[in-house]
């Protein structure tokens, strides 16, 4: 029963939701809307559960003085400060001038942007280190990379402004994105979508059930 009941629920709701895409009748659409709304509630609860789990795991590690415990203390302090400040400030915690807003603007926002900005440096170092032209295909890839990188910035069009419009780097880059890149992307998208559907079918029908529990 421990495995059969979740499998049954998965199959029933999964098949029902597929049916709701094709059947507009209220006998199907009303329960489907209910399930959609339930999914929203479950996801919201998941965030709460995640916070509680995070606190528990890291608190245990700090109390046991596991390796790296000072970092975990910083994490717990950050979590508690954000939650407490938000609770104290109530519904208007996102209004201008609140402490929550200050933490968001001065801590979260710059840190998040800084992490994303690291990509620029890593792309340059990855390009230097790893982009090796060992085969004709790799050469073609490198050529396409040059054309698109230069064509997507004003410098590319400025350098080729003397050419007819269709031959300027911007137009060439646009053609590469619109034609060969598009074709390859579609192929990957179709293949991945089929993989998702086949996996989804296996999960819904209970053919793939190892995710439920590791015990057979």
């Amino acid at each position: 029963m421990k495995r059969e009941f979740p499998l049954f629920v998965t199959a029933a709701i999964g098949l029902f939701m597929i049916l709701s895409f094709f059947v507009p009748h209220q006998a199907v659409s009303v329960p489907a809307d209910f399930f959609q709304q339930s999914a929203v509630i479950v996801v919201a609860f998941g965030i709460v559960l995640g916070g509680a789990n995070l606190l528990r795991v890291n608190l245990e590690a700090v109390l046991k003085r596991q390796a790296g415990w000072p970092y975990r203390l910083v994490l717990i302090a950050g979590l508690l400060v954000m939650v407490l400040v938000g609770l104290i400030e109530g519904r208007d915690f996102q209004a201008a001038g609140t402490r929550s807003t200050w933490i968001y603007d001065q801590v979260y926002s710059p840190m998040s942007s800084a992490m994303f900005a690291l990509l620029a440096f890593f792309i340059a170092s990855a390009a230097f280190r790893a982009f090796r032209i060992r085969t004709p295909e790799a050469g073609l890839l490198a050529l396409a990379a040059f054309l698109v990188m230069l064509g997507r910035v004003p410098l590319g069009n400025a350098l080729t402004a003397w050419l007819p419009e269709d031959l300027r780097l911007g137009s060439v880059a646009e053609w590469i994105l619109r034609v060969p890149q598009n074709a390859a992307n579609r192929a990957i998208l179709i293949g991945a979508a089929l993989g998702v559907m086949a996996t989804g079918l296996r999960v819904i029908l209970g053919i793939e059930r190892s995710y439920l529990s590791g015990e057979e």
Partner: protein
Amino acid sequence: MRQLEGLARLDRRWIFTVTGLLVLIPLLWPLNLPLTPSPPVRAYYDAVAAVPDGSHVLVSCDFDPAARPELEPMTRTTLRQLFAKRCKVVVVVLYPGGARLVDQIVREVATERGALYGTDLVNLGFKAGNEAVMVLMGQSIPNTFPRDQNGLDVGTLPIMRGVRNYSSFPLLVSISTGYPGTKEYVQQVQGRFHIPIAAGVTAVAAPTMYPYLQSGQLLGLLGGMAGAAEYERLMHESGPASRGMDAQSLAHVFVALCIVLGNVAQWGWKRREGA
């Protein structure tokens, strides 16, 4: 040959340093390189321009501070174009880390353009649930978002009178950084509810949106800061995206150079080992 050896063993911190300088210098001393709007950007601009004046437009801003440099400029420019057409803008946020940022952007542009909150604009705020929320909005937006970002009952707001679901809007503008975002709107909403969509995404996600652009599922596409800068150009503005394009130009040239130098160094190293 010794130089090539040195190049092959180059400490990557030198690469980081040069990248940093090439990005910083043009921000301080702009090059003012000319911008030419590309067809997807023109299509985006035309899609927004084609919306009848005074219509309601749904704008889904699904990004967080990490994607701010690329997506904030295009969000601001889109709002300006909509307010110039006296459109009523309904904003939703499906990205948890972006609610505060989007609210700030929306209010600043509204103040700049004299748009009244509640009459010309409403921010319905963040809702957890990803695709489920997108589909629920197709049934009823007031039921999905009973209160706005500030906790006001949406039924009391003049802008929300007559807003039912996607059919109340001639256009959905999706500005997104990842999941949930434009791809999910195309998959879950465009096919079911037939609302025209124009999208702005980060540069890395733009190539994956081209199939949808070509099939007509997206009316227009802004890709990253370059797309935002071209859009600013069409709107006759010179905003942060336009100013950032000089830095991006030099960075792109440097990355191309890194590919060349890396291969030259590798070639030289192989020759030395073979000799």
